[in-house]
């Protein structure tokens, strides 16, 4: 009988798939077939490994060699060299910054991985998401078994309360308390919801968890059902996540077949079933009452709170709603205990948080770190610093509902309270990094535009107020703002936050308020001097030729889409600012550094 000698893990997270994982996999299978290694090599497609920037990724065991940025044409070499002859293909190895290429497993040595503590993402990139057996091998469904055979619902709630776990969807409400409230409301029929309506720009941790480890959500929701007294659950997930939906469906099918889900789980008498509801991609449906409306088949608009969903929720019944990442923590807490979990993190923010690193950062991707890690460690150790030797300027946390943190606060500990003090929030965990070339007024405008688009229109302050704020920002970035506009922005912002019906409106002005707090001088430069210091806002910048550098190669004139550049061959060229649309095509083709951007 042939003995398996190699296991190959291919990352089949969304990012790696779009980077070409499928064609690599086909090529890999063909090469393995060609060299007759089919019997001794096992290929496993896993969930996201986190280092999306370097995808498609692949790890070959037993050596634990990590290959990056793969293309279909590399597979033949990897099979013939690595699998057949045992020689590592150095050209495709994952690089460690500042160090020589690593032959051993970067999981143990690369700073991107070593600083991480994986609880919610423990199985991602390690197991095959479509194999319930592999999930069981990693202690899957043991927490559910423990709960159903050894614990009373009250005990489950007690463990969660002691653990200190707080909602990972953004607001940070204590999860144990939420479960207790729902449990205590009398009612024969209750519901458990999972909020997988991930809408923040730049956040993709919920999708990655669902794609990489769907069973953990099923297990946690069944535990929640047992604890609060519900037999029916819904996962509300956006239709743009087809892969997550497909893997969840398959997960539910497998778990039911094994008797770990559905009717009479483990013969305990407890039944729990689940339906998947797809959302059409409205941001507001991430708000729990709007989500409930949408599950009921109505238009997704928030309800007035109180009453809270714990009392009057889905179809008027007591309803528990948690976010994907919150659920993903629960099986480990049940198995390892509240004390274990509460030892990780800070005094008030226990455990870990998954962050999505995006924007101007070296290692974009997905990381799970203990609460209380500093922003500096996040940027320079895990994130690998800012690309192109640029300087870190700020990071936006909490997406369009959050605010920015400037470089003066790089030493901030990342936890719910510290972020709130700085005028931002944890949010779902998106982190968008910005460097010196980012205009903060423009960023605020971008996020506000998102909220204006996504406002459901039910309440006045959000519908009208955010639009007025957006118009003011448009004026400022065109050089037509006044100093009074800044006061109006602040007052209006506060009013919208105080009077809006739901979390969307209550937080939508946050990016503006926060950039006004830390980067007021940038706003003032736009207004007083008609200048955009970061040289981003188009009405306030000009492209100019530096005569000393221009050799008259005509490259810029040929690429200009509006013929704004004139000049003869070997003569200094000139850009007509009246015609120029500031598209930047010229600067990207100039090989002599002869074009620069000026803001008067």
């Amino acid at each position, binding site marked *: 009988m042939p003995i*398996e000698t190699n296991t190959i893990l291919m990352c089949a997270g969304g990012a790696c798939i779009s980077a070409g994982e499928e064609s690599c996999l086909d090529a890999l299978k063909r090469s393995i077939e060609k060299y007759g290694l089919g019997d001794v090599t096992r290929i496993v497609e896993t969930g996201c490994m986190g280092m999306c920037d370097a995808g498609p990724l692949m790890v070959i065991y037993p050596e634990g060699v990590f290959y990056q940025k793969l293309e279909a044409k590399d597979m033949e070499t990897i099979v013939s060299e690595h699998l057949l002859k045992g020689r590592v293909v150095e050209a495709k190895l994952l690089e460690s910054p500042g160090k020589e290429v690593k032959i051993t497993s970067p999981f143990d040595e690369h700073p991107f991985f070593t600083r991480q503590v994986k609880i919610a993402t423990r199985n991602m990139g390690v197991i095959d998401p479509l194999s319930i057996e592999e999930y069981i091998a990693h202690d899957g469904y*043991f927490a559910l078994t423990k709960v159903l055979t050894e614990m009373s619902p009250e005990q489950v709630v007690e463990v969660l309360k002691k653990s200190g776990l707080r909602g990972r969807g953004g607001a940070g409400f204590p999860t144990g308390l939420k479960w207790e409230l729902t449990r205590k409301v009398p009612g024969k029929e209750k519901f458990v919801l999972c909020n997988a309506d991930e809408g923040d720009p730049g956040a993709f941790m919920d999708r990655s968890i669902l794609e990489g480890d769907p069973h953990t959500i099923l297990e946690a929701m069944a535990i929640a059902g047992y604890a609060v007294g519900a037999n029916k659950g819904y996962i509300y997930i956006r239709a743009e996540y087809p892969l997550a939906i497909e893997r969840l469906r398959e997960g539910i099918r497998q778990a039911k077949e094994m008797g770990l889900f559905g009717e009479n789980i*483990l013969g305990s008498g407890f039944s729990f079933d689940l339906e998947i509801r797809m959302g059409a991609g409205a941001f507001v449906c991430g708000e729990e009452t709007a989500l409930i409306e949408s599950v009921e088949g109505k238009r997704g608009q928030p309800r007035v709170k109180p009453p809270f969903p714990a009392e009057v929720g889905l179809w008027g019944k007591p309803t528990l709603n948690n976010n994907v990442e919150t659920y993903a923590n629960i099986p480990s807490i049940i198995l390892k205990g509240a004390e274990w979990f509460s030892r990780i993190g800070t005094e008030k923010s226990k455990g870990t948080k998954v962050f999505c690193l995006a924007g101007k950062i070296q290692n974009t991707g997905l990381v799970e770190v203990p609460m209380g890690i500093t922003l500096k460690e996040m940027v320079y150790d895990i994130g690998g610093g800012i690309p192109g030797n640029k300087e870190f300027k700020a990071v936006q946390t909490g997406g369009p509902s959050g605010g920015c943190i400037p470089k003066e606060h790089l030493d901030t500990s990342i936890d719910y309270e510290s972020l709130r003090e700085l005028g931002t929030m944890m949010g779902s965990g998106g982190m968008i990094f910005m460097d010196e070339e980012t205009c903060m007024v423009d960023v605020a405008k971008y996020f506000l535009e998102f909220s204006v688009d996504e406002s459901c229109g039910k309440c006045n302050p959000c519908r009208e107020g955010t639009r007025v704020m957006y118009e003011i920002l448009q004026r400022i970035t065109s050089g037509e703002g006044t100093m009074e506009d800044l006061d109006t922005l602040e007052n209006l912002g506060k009013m919208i936050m105080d009077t809006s019906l739901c979390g969307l409106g209550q937080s939508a002005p946050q990016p503006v308020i926060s950039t006004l707090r830390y980067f007021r001088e940038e706003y003032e430069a736009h207004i007083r001097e008609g200048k955009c210091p970061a040289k981003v806002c188009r009405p306030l910048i000009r492209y100019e030729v530096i005569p000393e550098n221009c050799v008259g190669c005509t490259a810029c004139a040929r690429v200009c889409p509006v013929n704004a550049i004139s000049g003869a061959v070997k003569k200094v060229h000139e850009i007509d600012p009246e015609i120029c649309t500031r598209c930047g095509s010229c600067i990207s083709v100039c090989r002599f550094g002869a074009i620069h951007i000026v803001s008067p």
Partner: protein
Amino acid sequence: MAKVKSLEELMKIKEQTVKGMSLRDSSKKGKLLVAMGTCGIAAGAKDTYQALVSELADKNIQDFAVLQSGCMGLCDVEPTVKVEIESQEPIVYGHVTPAQVKRIVQQHLVEGKVVSDLLIKKGEL
């Protein structure tokens, strides 16, 4: 598929699957490298390799990874097996037939004593 009814049954599934996934654990104590160049294979390295894997499985030794390597230049003493244990000098054995594999596993890996009559080289080549 039969329905799982108890913790014991769940445990059984776990144990069966864990075995098949053991290759994915890179945090092993040591490595056993079997030279599988043309010279090694001609001298019977494939049998040595198989014997090594099954002997480890029989003895339920899980903290060693069995790897293939290329020819290390010791063609006249093939099949060779290099034993690398964390923080110890690597040991190269020569003329390792399936029968000798049993001795290496028992004496070196279990008891921690070098099998001196098979020893070719101590330390890096």
